[in-house]
């Protein structure tokens, strides 16, 4: 559980209980069966939205085909009832199981796709299933009535009980969502959504987390579909696999608030009654008004409030009521990074090469970094510095050569595996979770290293202390200054307790004083025994902090050694200032 989770959970659960009770209380007074049906459908669509929210809201994997799971749930319940006389009370869990299996089958091939291809592929699945179902002859299926023991078969004579069941399902789904949000699951998903590469570099196995999200999402969606079948008593392929169904999950959550527990509930509460009553009033003159409403809602919300009503309102009105910074345990002193060979080489790179077509981006690069030293990698634009990091990090494969960390090879591993070896890497563009406190931003690094919850908090707090930000642990990341964001990025890497830091242009764009502060932090880290390799262009800063320089030009090592020596080196000067300059100086 995340820091402060129990407080948030208690508050949210109470709110949920209050709202649910009020809703059920109000619905008890509704005698018109059509209105009661609307009251039943709101929580069903809301919980369907919750399922979508987990994968696409928190996880950022935009799916336009959640109807697959919805329909699978609906048909499992229906077919089980028709052919095996299985009560929906068992049929729905069975449907959830089918949904989980479908999630795995769909996820395995589809997660290899990115962005819009993923969305289009997800769209294709329910449509394909729809056609298959039509072909198999399941055109319209009615759920048989059980007059003898209706309740045992999830059939109620008083429609109010359907509403109760639906609210119960919504509570269960929302609870699941709350648990996800408040655990490392939620943070991992947010990190992946934010920047999948950086999440991997922090140690998160993004494939695994995305699959988990899809399975949970699929199960909840299937449950919603199953209950839907019980309520409507008629199932057609189009009504559960159709595009409008997938669209409902999307609209309801987008409108209400993405990646927020309350989002789908708000969205459903507003849109479903609106669309349904418009349909009822005007449906005769304007058939299809429902679709128009949903379409318009999507467009308006995308242009006006792309993150949904919940966030827009919260940002605007509740700015004052910030959650107080959670009281932290006294910062534990940073454990001294234990070295395998104290003073020996930690990172050894031999003959590393990487080409893109004909261009040799990194060419026969060899160097070693001893433990506890800061190596500065410099070189003119396009020299291959970031490519070198990408190869070391696992983002790119090496064509040739070797790279070992304390004797173990770093090459041929996935990004998160390299991180688990003890390598932390920062990126040039720092993205934070602006609405979350600094501590939550940093703790992702600890989760990535596989630390259990309690240790992770300690590690994160310790990391913040090392960069000097422990007093801002509760500040929302959106309010941090540039310098603080860079330090946050550094702390995120430190939270995984690495042995090696790869820093990519950490000082870019900082003013003189800010630069000095960050340099002090780096110096302290080095004194504590951390090994750092840093790419930088701000030369005056590098001169002060680096123990040694490595100069790259056109992918090759031009020079290496003490800063003072390297800077006087003729070939280095030539690389930076040009041949003619050198010639002139000597003339």
């Amino acid at each position: 559980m995340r820091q402060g989770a129990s407080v948030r959970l208690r508050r949210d659960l109470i709110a949920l209980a209050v709202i649910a009770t009020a809703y059920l209380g109000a619905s008890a007074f509704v005698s018109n069966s059509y209105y009661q049906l609307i009251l039943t459908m709101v929580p069903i669509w809301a919980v369907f939205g919750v399922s979508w929210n987990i994968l696409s809201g928190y996880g950022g994997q935009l799916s336009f085909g959640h109807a697959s799971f919805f329909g699978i749930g609906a048909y499992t319940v229906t077919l089980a009832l028709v052919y095996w006389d299985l009560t929906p009370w068992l049929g729905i869990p069975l449907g959830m199981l089918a949904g989980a299996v479908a999630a795995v089958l769909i996820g395995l091939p589809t997660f290899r796709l990115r962005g819009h291809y993923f969305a289009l592929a997800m769209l294709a699945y329910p449509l394909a299933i729809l056609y298959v179902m039509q072909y198999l002859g399941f055109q319209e299926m009615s759920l048989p009535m059980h007059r003898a023991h209706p309740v045992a078969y999830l059939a109620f004579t008083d429609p109010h009980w359907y509403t109760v069941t639906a609210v119960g399902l919504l509570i269960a789904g929302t609870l699941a969502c709350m648990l996800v949000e408040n655990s490392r699951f939620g943070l991992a998903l947010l990190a992946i959504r934010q920047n999948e590469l950086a999440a991997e570099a922090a140690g998160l196995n993004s494939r695994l987390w995305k699959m988990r999200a899809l399975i949970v999402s699929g199960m909840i969606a299937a449950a919603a579909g199953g209950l839907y079948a019980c309520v409507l008593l008629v199932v057609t392929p189009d009504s559960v696999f159709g595009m409008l169904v997938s669209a409902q999950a999307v609209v309801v959550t987008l409108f209400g608030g993405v990646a927020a527990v309350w989002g789908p509930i708000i969205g459903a509460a507003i849109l479903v009654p609106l669309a349904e009553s418009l349909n009822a009033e005007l449906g005769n003159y304007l058939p299809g008004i429902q679709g128009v409403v949903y379409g318009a809602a999507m467009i308006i919300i995308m242009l006006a409030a792309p993150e949904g009503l919940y966030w827009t309102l919260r940002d605007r009105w509740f700015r004052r009521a910030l959650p107080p910074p959670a009281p932290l345990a006294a910062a534990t002193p940073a454990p001294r990074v234990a070295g395998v060979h104290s003073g020996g080489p930690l990172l050894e790179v031999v003959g590393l090469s990487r080409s893109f077509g004909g261009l040799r981006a990194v060419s026969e690069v060899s160097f070693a970094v001893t433990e506890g030293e800061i190596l500065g990698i410099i070189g003119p634009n396009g020299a291959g510095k970031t490519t070198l990091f990408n190869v070391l990090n696992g983002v790119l494969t090496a064509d040739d050569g070797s790279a070992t960390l304390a004797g173990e090879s770093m090459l041929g591993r996935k990004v998160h595996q390299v991180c688990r070896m003890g390598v932390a890497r920062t990126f040039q563009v720092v993205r934070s979770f602006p609405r979350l406190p600094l501590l939550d931003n940093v703790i992702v690094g600890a989760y990535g290293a596989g630390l259990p919850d309690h240790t992770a908090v300690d590690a994160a707090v310790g990391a913040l202390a090392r960069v000097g930000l422990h007093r801002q642990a509760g500040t929302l990341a959106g309010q941090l200054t540039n310098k603080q964001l860079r330090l946050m990025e550094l702390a995120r890497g430190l939270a995984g307790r690495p042995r090696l830091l790869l820093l990519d242009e950490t000082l870019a764009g900082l003013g003189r004083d800010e630069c000095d502060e960050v340099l002090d932090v780096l110096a302290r880290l080095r004194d504590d025994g951390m090994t750092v390799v840093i790419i930088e262009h701000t030369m005056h800063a590098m001169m002060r902090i680096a123990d040694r320089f490595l100069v790259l030009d056109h992918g090759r090592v031009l020079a290496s050694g003490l800063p003072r020596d390297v800077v006087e080196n003729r070939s280095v000067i030539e690389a930076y200032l040009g041949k003619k300059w050198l010639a002139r100086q000597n003339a």
Partner: protein
Amino acid sequence: MLEVLSLSVAYGGLRALTDVSLTVAEGQFVTVVGPNGAGKSTLFKAICGIVPVMNGRISFRGNDLGARAASERAHLGIAHVPEGRQVFKTLTVRENLEMGAYTKAGRAQWRHTLERIHALFPILHERAHQLAGTLSGGEQQMLAVGRGLASAPKLLMLDEPSMGLAPAVADLIFERISQIHREDGVTILLVEQRVAEALELSDHGYVLETGHMVLDGPYETLLADDRVRRSYLGLTGA
């Protein structure tokens, strides 16, 4: 011709340029040098209208550029040869040049300009119908310069034309640029990392460091000034 006054640009929360001023008179060859991250490209992007300006004024031949949209500026006579060449990879060499001549001035003088471009860079004539993305780095740079010339500009701005090129190729490019300046009388504003090559060709030079203009003067003065070297190699203590 071009006047930049107290320009300040910030984006992504970073101060890229602070209070930068420079002037380019008609017919001059002006160079801006400076280490990486100094803001040289940002300066060009601001002149072309790609990045928003926080403070300051840019005027070109009496026109206040702040009032002009980015795509209008080429029609005023400014040609920009961007950093990294940025050729249209899916168009042929000839089509790239035609795009350069999108402006009215460019189209009016197309015949003449095309001949001139072919004279300067014969390889562009040889590879006229090849896709630009298949050219080598040096060839793409030549294409980018040719494309800039194709608009028959009053001011030709070149952003780090030597980047990523082998020294011999870079030298050739510089030679051609100098030729264009001398023979066609085009006003040139050049941004470069290779200080001596760039300054040698120019009338006037500016040194940019972390968003500030720190030095300027005629090229002999700058070449003799050790502050330039120190600025590049981080030895300035200030």
